[in-house]
């Protein structure tokens, strides 16, 4: 089936070329980072994780969100999602691939990455994260490919694939829960040390991921003959809206606990992120943009007129995606390091190479996504013609 990715319009090849250019630029920057060390990034002794780990955390959410189309279709027999489950699964594949690349990009000694397997350490959450992410990657490639092959041959998917599909549903929840546990179990970091981190991760994931999926469906509708259908998209909108509202609720709970208890450690990072701490507020503009975009998006999802029109819906999805990306892909990880355990405030500015590597990994992810979607949609288009 992969050969279907080798034929395409000029526009398709143009897009592939753009992605390859970013991938090449990222690879060049990575060579520099590999030779110099991670000092080439903006990270420091105090802010020891930066955009790489933040992107990783955000993308685990995008990967997990695939379950939002898989679950209604397979557990509730919601047939409308039948057409787009493959899009959800392949989005998960691309997202997990990016996660693994971001982890590798962040390692000081990437050549030793397999030490995690050579010296398995069950008390480390990173060990479990490695397991759940790789299994989730396998499950989605496997299920997606088998079901698509059956679709191509115009037969029902084999029965033995069902257990893999059912396992993939709680597995999606597990990847983001374990990723939240990376943070939520660390004793000295008040901002992360909260039991609601895992639910909050899931809520924001189930809002941001399907929002991206809606955007992808709208783009696909324009560039191919495949249409996900108004009903499927509107059902995704419902999911996004609920998840986004639950996420806002969870964030407000964090604010209540911090500010009503008035415990300094609980307030510091929120102060730093949203209002500025001791006059330092590097991320304040970002977090305010995130807040405003989030509110506008939710209003647009709630108002029928803006929700039903494709152009306004697309804008709402973009705004929400940016809002959640800032919240998790910048604020959550970098904010957690401020103040440091010695209560010092250190600013973090990603370097040029760091940004290029980040863009390169995103481009690689979209490259994988493009190839997989091209294959899946070619199969679907063939069927529509015949």
């Amino acid at each position: 089936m992969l050969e279907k990715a080798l034929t395409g319009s000029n526009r398709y090849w143009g897009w592939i070329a753009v992605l390859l250019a970013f991938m090449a630029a990222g690879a060049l920057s990575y060579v520099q980072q590999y030779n110099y060390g991670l000092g080439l990034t903006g990270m420091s002794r105090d802010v020891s994780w930066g955009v790489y780990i933040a992107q990783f955390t955000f993308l685990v959410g995008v990967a997990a969100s695939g379950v939002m189309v898989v679950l209604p279709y397979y557990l509730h027999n919601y047939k409308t999602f039948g057409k787009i489950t493959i899009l959800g699964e392949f989005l998960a594949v691309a997202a997990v691939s990016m996660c693994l690349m971001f982890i590798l990009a962040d390692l000081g000694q990437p050549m030793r990455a397999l030490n995690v397997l050579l010296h398995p350490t069950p008390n480390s959450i990173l060990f479990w994260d490695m397991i759940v992410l790789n299994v989730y990657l396998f499950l989605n490639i496997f299920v997606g490919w088998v079901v698509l092959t059956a679709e191509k041959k115009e037969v029902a998917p084999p029965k033995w694939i069902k257990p893999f599909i059912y396992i993939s549903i709680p597995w999606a929840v597990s990847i983001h829960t374990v990723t939240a546990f990376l943070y939520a179990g660390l004793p000295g970091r008040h901002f992360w040390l909260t039991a609601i981190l895992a639910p909050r991760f899931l809520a924001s994931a189930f809002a941001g991921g399907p929002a991206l999926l809606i955007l992808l469906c709208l783009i696909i509708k324009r560039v191919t003959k495949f249409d996900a259908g108004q009903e499927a998209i509107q059902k995704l909108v419902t999911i996004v809206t609920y998840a986004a509202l639950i996420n806002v609720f969870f964030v407000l709970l964090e604010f209540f606990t911090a500010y009503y208890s008035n415990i300094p450690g609980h307030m510091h990072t929120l102060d730093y992120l949203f209002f500025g701490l001791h006059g330092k507020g590097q991320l304040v503009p970002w977090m305010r943009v995130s807040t405003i975009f989030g509110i506008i998006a939710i209003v647009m999802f709630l108002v029928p007129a803006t929700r039903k029109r494709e152009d306004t819906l697309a804008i709402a999805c973009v705004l929400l995606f940016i809002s959640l990306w800032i919240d998790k892909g910048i604020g959550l990880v970098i904010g957690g390091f401020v103040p440091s355990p010695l209560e010092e405030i250190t600013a973090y500015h990603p370097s040029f190479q760091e940004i290029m590597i980040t863009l390169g990994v995103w481009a690689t992810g979209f490259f994988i996504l493009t190839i997989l979607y091209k294959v899946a949609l070619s199969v679907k288009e063939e069927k529509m013609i015949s």
Partner: protein
Amino acid sequence: MDIKRRQFLKIAGLSTIAGIGAPAAFNLLLKGETSPVSYASSGGSAEASHDDAPAGVRLGMVIDQKVFDANIGLAQKCVTACHTVHNVPDFGKDNKKDAIKWIFEVPFEKAFTNKSHYHRNAHLHDSDFLVLCNHCDNPPCVRACPTKATFKRKDGIVAMDYHRCIGCRFCMAACPYGMRSFNWRDPRPFIDQTKHNKEFPTRMRGVVEKCNFCVDRLARGLQPACVEATGNTGAMVFGDLNDSHSKIRKVLDENFTIQRKPALGTQPSLFYII
């Protein structure tokens, strides 16, 4: 015939998978049982953790701030001694980004973040306190490390294997004291060659490092470098916390001491006389 063969192959296949998987899974469980954490924690309930110390040797240190206050420059001598002995690179005072520190001086409110209040006495305002790895009895860094590159020895020292560290920096996020440093770049050009200690390894870029209580010097019957630097002032006392006749226990019995962030349950092996 065909069906039988298929069934046979199914059973054979499944039992092979089980055969391959079982020892590995069993091994993992065993390893989990003997992981550093299981003997690192003193375990026990909230009440027990206040007085029950684990059995066996547990090395610890008392820092007497009164002596450091009376001997200006002594703390810096400790820092220099440590960083020289361990080939800690010097990136210059202004380079906070690459900084590697095993032991350093900070003001009271940074060392003891949860103990500051409006009306501290003057000496708490003016003096700087030495901070270093606490060699916790229940170390969060050991819990976080995915490769056992940082581990707890039976004598209580939290040590590092620089050759196994993958540089994920999970331990840095996990340490509630900010005592871990990462080699953001090749440290070797920043080691003063005239003072290079050939008896201790230099590190390569991409690995984490921190105070190791001079585990190599202890093996040779020497005191930790910082303790040695304080001479006979008594500013630092090092010894076995579980030996009721040790000097450190005598000091702990006779003085009121505090620890950094005791509420986190990490059980530091470092004590401060204020």
